[in-house]
């Protein structure tokens, strides 16, 4: 595996490492069917991808696979939401409001509740931790950039971020109560 690849290098790399990617997707989705679908989509994307020289092709493929799981997760959730909204709209005989785009008020409220809890938690955190978290998650600054900016090591940045994420995940709004809207539950796998 060389660093500089010919134009079709990514496709070749994919074929060579298909098993590894499949194993990753299977572990990540917990479903053989889902991972197979995502792998198929990924293969199409890889063939279409016009990338310049990629320094570490395999890491790049893993990243693509990882993102593909998130994308499929997200579009599933969106579809679910749309279906729910559609159903709710039919049940309520809505369309009388004259407003065509119907958000799901319950979900919005829950979302706001979560965000306010997160804001409150951030305000409780040490200043530097909260700053790093916002800069990383909201402004999209990389850990490397933040390390340079504050003159600390990347692993120190990582520790701050971990602390922030831990505090947020410990919030009651994120408690795992067998969330029925979760995507890849047992029921969904069987369906």
């Amino acid at each position, binding site marked *: 595996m060389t660093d500089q690849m010919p134009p079709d290098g990514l496709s070749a790399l994919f074929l060579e490492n298909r098993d590894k990617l499949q194993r*990753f997707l299977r*572990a990540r989705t*917990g479903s053989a069917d889902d991972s197979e679908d995502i792998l198929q989509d990924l293969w199409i994307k890889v063939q279409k991808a016009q990338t*310049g020289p990629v320094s570490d092709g395999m890491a790049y493929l893993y990243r693509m696979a*990882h993102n593909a799981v998130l994308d499929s997760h997200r579009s599933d959730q969106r579809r679910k939401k749309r279906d729910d909204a559609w159903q709710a709209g039919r049940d309520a005989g809505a369309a009388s*409001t004259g407003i065509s785009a119907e958000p799901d008020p319950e979900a919005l409220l829950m979302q706001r509740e*979560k965000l306010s809890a997160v*804001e409150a938690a951030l305000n409780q955190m040490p200043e530097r931790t909260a700053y790093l978290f916002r800069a990383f998650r909201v402004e999209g600054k990389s850990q490397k950039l933040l390390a340079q900016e504050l003159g600390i090591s990347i692993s120190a940045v990582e520790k701050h971020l971990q602390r922030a994420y831990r505090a947020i995940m410990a919030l009651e709004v994120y408690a795992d109560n067998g969330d029925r809207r979760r995507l890849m539950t047992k029921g969904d796998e069987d369906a």
Partner: protein
Amino acid sequence: MEQAIAWHIRLSRPDAPVDDWEEFTLWLEKDALHRRAYDRVSDMDAGLSGLQPTIHTESGAQPTSSRNTPARWKPVLAAIAALFICALLLWPQLSGPELQVVETQAGERRTITLSADTRIELNGGSRIILEQGNERLARLEQGEAVFHVRHDAQNPFIVETGRYILKDAGTVFNVARHGEGLHVAVAEGKVIFQPDTKAIGIDAGKQLHVPASGTAKLVNVAVGDIGAWREGRLNFYEAPLDIVAADIMRASGKKISVSPSLSERNFTGVLIVEKDEAQFKRQLELLLNVRVTANGEAWLLEP
């Protein structure tokens, strides 16, 4: 859970090596609960999109960074911000009428039809609040929208946005929020900015720039360029690169951050949002005269 969090942060590094991915696979395989924990972290993270970047003071005296604020004020500001957020959250319940929130993801667009001759086209990454039963009022909480409004002098259409109010005087106009800043461009008719105080009239073919701090400025704009985001064209006039980045994100869903060393740089010109990422990247590099590096899903603009 702690391990799931550590993985989530580790893998968000754009240069995460193959070893990390293989180790991550092994960790996932070890226990099905690991995947569940990772999903929960990932879901939580995905839901944080509405978070505020930094806490702004209403005076806007120091618009860019809370780090310039003397440390002793921080708890006070944080408390004010918390109160403000609570007020914002309670606001719908306290006030009488039913409110309708319409929100778009970055890269998504929506048209809201209020009546036969009044509609709002909402750009990506935007949020608007409407009062049910009152189709003459809209509050643009975040993002950008084109308003097509039936003019009625007796009952003008009002857009509230942050601390500003816009009143239509017969009209098609585009409103874009950039944090505390505001851009209003009028394609047809006229809009009154701050009707109760300054009452600046914005005629067709004019655009009002209200920066986060400093004085507002009225400039000419080609009518055809107003709301051009609907066709995937983004027009900029002396726009700081972070505003350019925010507009691209709204229109395309592509997350872009700007290196602090480019904070002084302005851009005037037109960008076309392209589906092909490689081409879009080249375009940005050429037109903005920057280097674009991938940072996970996001792009970083550097000199």
